[in-house]
């Protein structure tokens, strides 16, 4: 990579840098101004884009994008007081934000045109927005590249385009007083919560798509600017503060919700995310590919349902909730050991197929225990309905409660209960990861033969990972049974449109980043939120899901959040000079 002389690479559009920056800035400000105009004449398009002087719906997104573009353009120019925004790349964030604003705006304009039937429905404001965002993009593409070219010689248009989005890593940050660092972490989580809540609260699909587009470009822009690295360095020094901030933000979520319908999404995301994190112990740490993991959730849910006092339960015993949780976790644990003991002697693909089979066996067995094909335990396909709401310490989870002046509905209550279990699972994951046991799991994942030669009883530790994962899922299942009122076999398929199911759980882990805590949480949130918000696309959902996975594996195989160990490859301790890619370590032979 290091050549004797650095080669500059021409920007995508051959414009002088100053002119380009000016164009981008003017374009961004014009775009910003256009959001205060009416884009269309009728309120038929959702979000009411007809009001002059008050941006609404998709206009707010364009406004945000344009504002950020202008800010980063100024910061990249070296305006005093904004330097902290761009410790890494100076121009690539502007380009990405301009692109994000452009796609969001043009999506809005096109959506108006298509939905209302023709360009005639666009008011001048809409035209201005479209043209101004295009001008911004042209200006941004004319800005010089942030990093010198890797190879000398002329570059093709596509090479120049992809190169334009590369950015250098930020240098070391100037030390701040620790209260300021903690404040920054808190602010970052506050912003994160705000963005997440905004996404959940989007009321119509157009707004959500616009939101996804802006986030899709905005997040990499922030990363190119080097802010992610800076924040990462801060969170690494204040681990406990970070964890606390994360849970405070998560705890605050139901208090931001006026509508219990959106709290439902929150509660379901949390169940899904918790189970995904449990799966991450099995897949991410121990490297065991489990395609039937949802069965453990099912075992926990069925156990809780049977002991819940539901009138349809075939067991007439009602256990208190804590006992039901323990029973569900214990049942899952036993199920995990029973399945794991024979199957964990297999490796890789064979293990995946066998676990897939066991997952389906669980579902079909539940379906057949209806008194006709088998013993009458689970009511067959009808499942166990009418699971009563929980009541803990006089707090009924089914009724709305007024806490701190905010009305918390049923799902908000369950969200908070589930959050408690999420904290347990996160703690279990972190603590087991950073211990002798966690190291042994990772060693087995890396090279089982070498791990055994180091004295690790591979079978026993794999069984431990499998059983621990099962227990965590079973625990989550006991809450899920109460949230969903009904437990049926159809909830625990290998794959279907609604998460959680085995395929989506695995996808959440891989999409988010294997072996990390935040990865599966983010992955699960995305995988739940997108189908829930874009219900008009439900027919194509699995197709889109497949395409998204293929794209992700092509462009970011380590997942959205890279593992600590993978991050180390680019760590500041002078490892940048290490050769890229898999070097030296041969996989073959003993």
């Amino acid at each position: 990579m290091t050549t004797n002389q650095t080669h500059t690479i021409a920007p995508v559009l051959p414009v002088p840098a100053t002119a380009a920056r000016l164009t981008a800035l003017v374009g961004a400000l014009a775009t910003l101004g256009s959001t205060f105009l009416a884009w269309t004449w009728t309120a038929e398009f959702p979000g009411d884009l007809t009001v002059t002087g008050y941006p609404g719906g998709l206009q707010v997104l364009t406004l945000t994008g344009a504002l950020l573009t202008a800010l980063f353009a100024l910061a990249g120019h070296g305006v005093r007081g904004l330097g902290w925004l761009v410790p890494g790349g100076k121009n690539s964030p502007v380009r990405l934000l301009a692109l994000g604003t452009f796609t969001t705006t043009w999506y809005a304009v096109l959506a108006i045109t298509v939905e209302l039937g023709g360009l005639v429905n666009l008011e001048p404001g809409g035209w201005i927005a479209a043209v101004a965002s295009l001008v911004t993009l042209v200006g941004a593409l004319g800005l010089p590249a942030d990093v010198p070219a890797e190879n000398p010689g002329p570059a093709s248009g596509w090479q120049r385009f992809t190169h334009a989005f590369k950015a250098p890593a930020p240098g070391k940050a100037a030390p701040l007083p620790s209260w300021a660092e903690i404040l920054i972490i808190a602010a970052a989580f506050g912003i994160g919560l705000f963005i997440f809540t905004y996404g959940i609260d989007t009321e119509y699909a157009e707004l959500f798509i616009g939101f996804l587009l802006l986030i899709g470009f905005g997040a990499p822009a922030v990363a190119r600017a080097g802010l992610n690295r800076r924040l990462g360095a801060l969170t690494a020094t204040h681990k406990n503060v970070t964890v606390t901030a994360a849970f405070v933000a998560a705890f605050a979520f139901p208090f931001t919700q006026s509508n219990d319908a959106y709290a439902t999404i929150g509660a379901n995301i949390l169940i899904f995310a918790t189970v995904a994190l449990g799966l991450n112990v099995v897949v991410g740490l121990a490297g065991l590919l489990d395609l039937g993991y949802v069965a453990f959730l099912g075992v926990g849910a069925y156990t809780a349902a049977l002991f819940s006092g539901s009138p349809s339960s075939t067991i007439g015993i009602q256990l208190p909730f804590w006992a039901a949780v323990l029973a569900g976790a214990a049942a899952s644990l036993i199920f995990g050991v029973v399945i794991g003991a024979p199957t964990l002697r297999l490796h890789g693909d064979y293990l995946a197929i066998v676990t897939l089979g066991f997952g389906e066996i669980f579902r079909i067995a539940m379906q057949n225990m209806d008194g006709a094909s088998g013993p009458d335990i689970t009511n067959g396909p009808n499942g166990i309905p009418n699971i009563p709401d929980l009541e803990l310490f006089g707090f009924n989870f089914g009724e709305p409660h007024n806490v701190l002046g905010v009305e918390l509905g049923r799902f908000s209550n369950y969200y908070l209960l589930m959050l408690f279990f999420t904290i347990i699972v996160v703690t279990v994951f972190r603590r087991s990861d950073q211990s002798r046991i966690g190291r042994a799991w990772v060693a087995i994942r890396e090279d089982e033969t070498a791990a055994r030669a180091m004295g690790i009883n591979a079978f026993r530790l794999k069984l431990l990972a499998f059983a621990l994962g099962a227990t965590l899922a079973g625990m989550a299942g006991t809450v899920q049974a109460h949230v969903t009122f009904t437990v049926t076999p159809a909830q625990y398929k290998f794959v279907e449109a609604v998460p959680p199911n085995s395929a989506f759980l695995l996808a959440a882990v891989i999409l988010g980043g294997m072996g990390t805590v935040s990865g599966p949480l983010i992955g699960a949130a995305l995988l739940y939120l997108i189908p829930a918000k874009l219900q008009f696309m439900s027919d194509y959902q699995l197709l889109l899901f497949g395409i998204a996975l293929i794209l992700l594996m092509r462009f970011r195989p380590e997942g959205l959040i890279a593992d600590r160990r993978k991050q180390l490859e680019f760590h500041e301790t002078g490892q940048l000079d290490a050769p890229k890619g898999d070097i030296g370590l041969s996989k073959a032979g003993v």
Partner: protein
Amino acid sequence: MTTDTVTPAGTGTPVLHASGVTMRFGGLTAVRNVELTVNSGEIVGLIGPNGAGKTTFFNCLTGLYIPTEGTVSYKGKVLPHRSHLVTQAGIARTFQNIRLFANMTVLENVLVGRHTRTKEGLWSALLRGPGFKKAERESEARAMELLEFTGLAAKRDHLARNLPYGEQRKLEIARALASEPGLLLLDEPTAGMNPQETRATEELVFAIRDQGIAVLVIEHDMRFIFNLCDRVACLVQGEKLVEGTAEVVQGDERVVAAYLGTPFEDAPGAEEVAEVEAAEAHATDRAPGPDSTTGATGTTSTTGPEGDPK
């Protein structure tokens, strides 16, 4: 039959004793009736042409393979055929092709080596009591000592995959030492090293021996072996041909024959030799004949598999 067993120098007590170890893969006998003793404080070398069964023999010793016949005992106790139990008993090894945990840091690699010498289970990890913290601290201190010993302390937070080749070899040795072995098995520790690195490895092996750890080493570098080892055993086509001091082995004409390819009388697999010669004759039609150092391997090329158990 052709084995000359030299009585081991009677200084130390036997650490490792392999008796009658035979390993067959189907109809192929990779290791045949090998006896080997390693005494405490000794460095023993194991040489032999490629495919002679050295690594297979190593795998039998460490429980990766279950020998078809024969037993291996460590300090008088017969070893079980389970890799992790062998390590627990006190035999650690390195691999011919480096097998580090590539995506773990240098320190973590060594900490994994400590696995058998620590007891903290899952509950201890979850509850994080004082015992857990103490054990972690001690493990880390011991691991750092070993990294100092092998000269890798400065790179503790690097990923194993990013180390240069020579340091990966050293790390593998440090990781093996972390299990506090009484016997260290090194499988071609200097393969691919330059002369300086080889000398450094030599010093390292001596230093390990001085800590009271017996060493059994497979190597092709004859200068390395004869400098280092108190005794050398030569394995050819799965059988121990000769064992003794460096001079004895160097002077043994059968060893020379095995390496240099002169067919010898009573050779096991004489017809193979004929076959190989026919093949070589065929090959010389196209290429110049094999030179004196590599040609020898031809005579044993059809012997047992070396290496990959999977």
